[in-house]
């Protein structure tokens, strides 16, 4: 068990976070194995996105431990945190592309600052990444000139730029048509298979979660009520899980 934990790139223990009097996360404990795709489900406002923000150090927890790739994120200073973030990719719900930069420059941005000379040319690497998400013809376009689905794909290319060990996805299929959502879902699955990346996906989309996840957790009132496979969720006797599943059908 201890050996297993040492190999887990994501380990969370007793995580608590409140905003004012409202407790959003109330003692979350979970670990995610290498190459695993974990979906985090739950109603709006149950702290799913907050969990992702805590995992990458954008917010500080009130209590608890977060170990990402072996480093205790909660204890790191700004410089060490920046170093640790090189190994973590993050796909934002609204893509969050830099709107003053072209698509190519968006992907190149982290590479210019972190890619060592021996690791290759940032521009070539950015073009390769954009080609891998099917956008090699739109390198010079600006974010305002492309669709929501294309923005998500560029953001995915940017999140993968530094070849992170863990990728966090915040609602990757939200607001997309079913075909584009399926394409994004397929990209997540391919990433896990080809690169052995560990993925944590926050989503409302039960069908997508069933398709690309190895495992899912269901959050309610700041705690995990189900942790297992889709079958485990279906067999759960928890009232909230039953209702969540029936309403999603």
């Amino acid at each position, binding site marked *: 068990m201890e050996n297993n934990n040492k190999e887990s790139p994501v380990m969370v223990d007793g995580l608590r976070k409140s905003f004012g009097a409202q407790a959003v996360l109330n003692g979350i404990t979970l670990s995610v194995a290498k190459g695993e795709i974990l979906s985090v489900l739950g109603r709006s406002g149950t702290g799913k996105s907050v969990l992702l*923000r805590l995992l*990458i150090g*954008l917010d500080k927890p009130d209590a608890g431990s977060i170990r990402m790739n072996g480093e205790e994120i909660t204890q790191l200073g*700004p*410089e060490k945190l*920046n*170093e640790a*973030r*090189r190994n*973590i*990719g*993050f796909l*934002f*719900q*609204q893509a*969050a*592309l*830099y*709107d003053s930069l072209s698509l190519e420059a968006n992907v190149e*941005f*982290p590479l210019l*600052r*972190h890619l060592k000379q021996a690791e290759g040319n940032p521009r070539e690497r950015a073009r390769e990444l954009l080609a891998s998400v099917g956008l090699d013809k739109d390198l010079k376009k600006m974010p305002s000139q492309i669709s929501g689905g294309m923005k998500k794909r560029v*953001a995915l290319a*940017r999140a993968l*730029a*530094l070849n992170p060990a863990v990728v966090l996805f915040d609602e990757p299929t939200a607001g997309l048509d079913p075909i584009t959502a399926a394409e994004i879902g397929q990209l997540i699955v391919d990433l896990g298979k080809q690169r052995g990346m560990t993925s944590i996906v926050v989503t409302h989309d039960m069908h997508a979660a069933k398709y690309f996840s190895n495992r899912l957790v269901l959050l309610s009132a700041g705690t995990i009520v189900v942790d297992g496979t889709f079958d485990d969720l279906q067999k759960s006797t928890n009232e909230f899980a039953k209702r969540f599943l029936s309403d999603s059908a």
Partner: protein
Amino acid sequence: MDDTPIAITQPVVKFLEWFGDFGKFCWRVAGAIFNWPFEAEEFLHQLDVIGSKSLPLVALAGGATGVVLSLQTRESLTRFGAKSVLPAVIIFSLIKETGPIITGLVVSGRVGAGIGAELGSMSVTEQIDAMAVSGVNPDKYLAATRILACLVALPLLTLAADAAGILMGWIATTLAEPTSLSLFLNNGLKGVRFSDFLPPTLKTALFGLIIGTVSSFQGMNTRGGTEGVGRSATSSVVLSSLFIILADVVVVRLIIALYP
């Protein structure tokens, strides 16, 4: 239950919180400026956006001030029989106070609103968070570059405002009573000392520091969508202008004490 204590203490607490957060922000940015490597490309880009793109407006404001000074003081000086000192009054007024303060306020309006709105928009669309998760320090890339660009640009823009003011002051004067430019300059600059020119010009670096830090702080702490962006743009201008005026009072007193 009387709500008066809360009604009084809440704004005071908010006011103190703002200063506390602003102080922490300044400390972080100061650390980021000295953290190698320096974002030279972004700094030069901001110098262009803040400096060269403000030049026409600053020159226009300086020029208009020169014309107004000439028109207003001419009549008064004639009344007191001191018309010959008109060039000196225009030049002294421009280089010692009017040029620097006009430049500070004009740039705080144009650049302060721009920085507040741009960083505010980046903040509400999570672009600043995206930068942080890419392992790039937003304080260093976004704030430090803008603050340094303001700091460098303001004294240079002040020179432009002074020059435009003197030139337009001469044109207004010569339209009323033809005078050559060299005579106007000779008369005006005759009593000007180094200490009359350099400290007031360099004090605008402080105005630049104020515009850069206040606007970056307001922008990067924007909350509440597009409404929040509007609030940040407005508060950047209002606070920058207010602090510039207050700083000017202190710095002028300091200059008088150091260069009596």
